[in-house]
């Protein structure tokens, strides 16, 4: 394992070092210490690296991630894993607003709570939150899954497209065009799979499913497979 003290090396130098690794690199295990709230740590990676960050991170940690598996042993600031493409970003603590915003793929796991606008404009990412999410989560969510084991704040799923939301606790209120939908075996099995890949031992039975009423945007059932 390669250990880097980001306080002494600096964020830019660290990220450059990670970006320059060759495709077939053997330097796959990294530990980053002393993040102290620094921004854009391990952002823009495109290698199958395994990165542990020891401490709290600032804005945009793991942003645009491809392939890499990033674990934050602390809390994360705004825009965690923003626009993630693939790979996994895990935060053991809480995440601030706009976690996994506009993510296209991959998995984001938040052990604690996520703040407002979690999964805003998500386009295919799977997000699993062990705790609760704040207001306006999954706003304009287009594709992917948002799993909330705790409660969801006001206006959940406002203007949602074809993303699927599962909530284990209470929902303060639903946003425009977001409705509760029946939980079928297919959905329960997908939820179990998501919880398992997040490493959470939570019973899927208590969850409810939410999605689009398809009244607000131009949904055509003939194209359903493309969403």
């Amino acid at each position, binding site marked *: 394992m390669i250990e880097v003290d980001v306080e002494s090396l600096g964020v830019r130098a660290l990220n450059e070092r990670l970006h320059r690794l060759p495709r077939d690199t053997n330097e796959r295990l990294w530990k980053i210490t002393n993040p102290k709230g620094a921004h854009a740590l391990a952002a823009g990676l495109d290698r199958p690296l395994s990165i542990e960050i020891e401490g*709290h991170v600032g804005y945009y940690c793991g942003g645009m991630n491809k392939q890499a598996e990033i674990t934050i042993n602390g809390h994360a600031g705004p825009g965690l894993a923003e626009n993630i493409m693939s790979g996994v970003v895990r935060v053991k603590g809480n995440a601030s607003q706009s976690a996994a915003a506009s993510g296209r793929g991959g998995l984001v796991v938040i052990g604690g709570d996520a703040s407002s606008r979690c999964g805003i404009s998500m386009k295919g990412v799977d997000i699993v939150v062990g705790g609760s999410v*704040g207001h306006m989560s999954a706003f304009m969510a287009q594709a992917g899954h948002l799993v909330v084991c705790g409660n969801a704040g006001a206006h959940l799923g406002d203007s949602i497209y074809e993303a699927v939301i599962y909530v284990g606790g209470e929902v303060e209120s639903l946003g425009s065009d977001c409705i509760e939908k029946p939980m079928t075996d297919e959905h329960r099995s997908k939820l179990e799979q998501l919880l398992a890949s997040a490493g959470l031992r939570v019973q899927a039975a208590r969850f409810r499913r939410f999605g689009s009423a398809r009244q607000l945007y131009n949904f055509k059932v003939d194209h359903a497979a493309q969403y």
Partner: protein
Amino acid sequence: MCGIVGLFLKNSALESSLGKHLSAMLSALSDRGPDSAGFAIYRNPAPRGSIKVTLFHPDPDFGWDRLMREMSEEIGTKVRGEARGSHLLLTAAMPVETARHWLAHHRPEVRIMGVGDCIELYKEKGNPKEVVRRFGLEELAGSHALGHTRMATESAVTTQHSHPFSTGLDLCLVHNGSLSNHNRMRRWLSRHGIEFQTDNDTEVAAGYFTHLLGEGATLKEALKSGISDLDGFYTFAIGTKDGFAVVRDPIACKPAVLAETDDWVAMASEYRAIAHLPGADQSRIWEPSPATVYSWQKH
């Protein structure tokens, strides 16, 4: 953008290092607000019957000694002063209104930055790291303090437009965000006797809280009213003689982090500003909820 910080000490043993910690917090948020910086620090209560007034004049050779001599002779009381950068902290045994009246008539070009028993308020154009150095913040002891690094959006980059803003005794406010109903609110408050020195939106919020506190509201009540009366984006940190509070608007898109240990409560726009405080790693850290008032009081 802008960055705001606040540090409220629960353990008085740390008071000698308050300035050092606040200085590090402000410096950490320099890139959120490179236009100007300022801080209010609560320290050294004035003797009974005296007041502390922080004054500003942009001329480095301004005649502070002459001002103090004339003020002392004409009012007939002892006036002490301590220059700090472009500011002067004046301590005098006289009512607040006497000091205000004398200054308005004899030195109208001098700005009053803050008035009270404990508050001292220093602010200036320039990079925050340089501003805190100029005022020697690192050496200042105190019980609590607030600070601001400004990236100007809605009014000019001047010392007067910098934060914190103080409109009432020992009350000050720092703000990240922008208000949209400040012109109407300023007119309303002016009719109720609140005086403003600038066209800045944050000064209106400070005036609003001063007005409500003057009407008998508690700090918590005043801040709760603000949630419905002040329209716009904001994270506010507010200091009073013996209190400290934080509130965010209902949309809460302006960032804020709170951290607390047995020794202190810290607030900042970002965790970066808190990370270097003693025991920060082990502190309880949370993001303040929208439209919720958090406040602490000295016992």
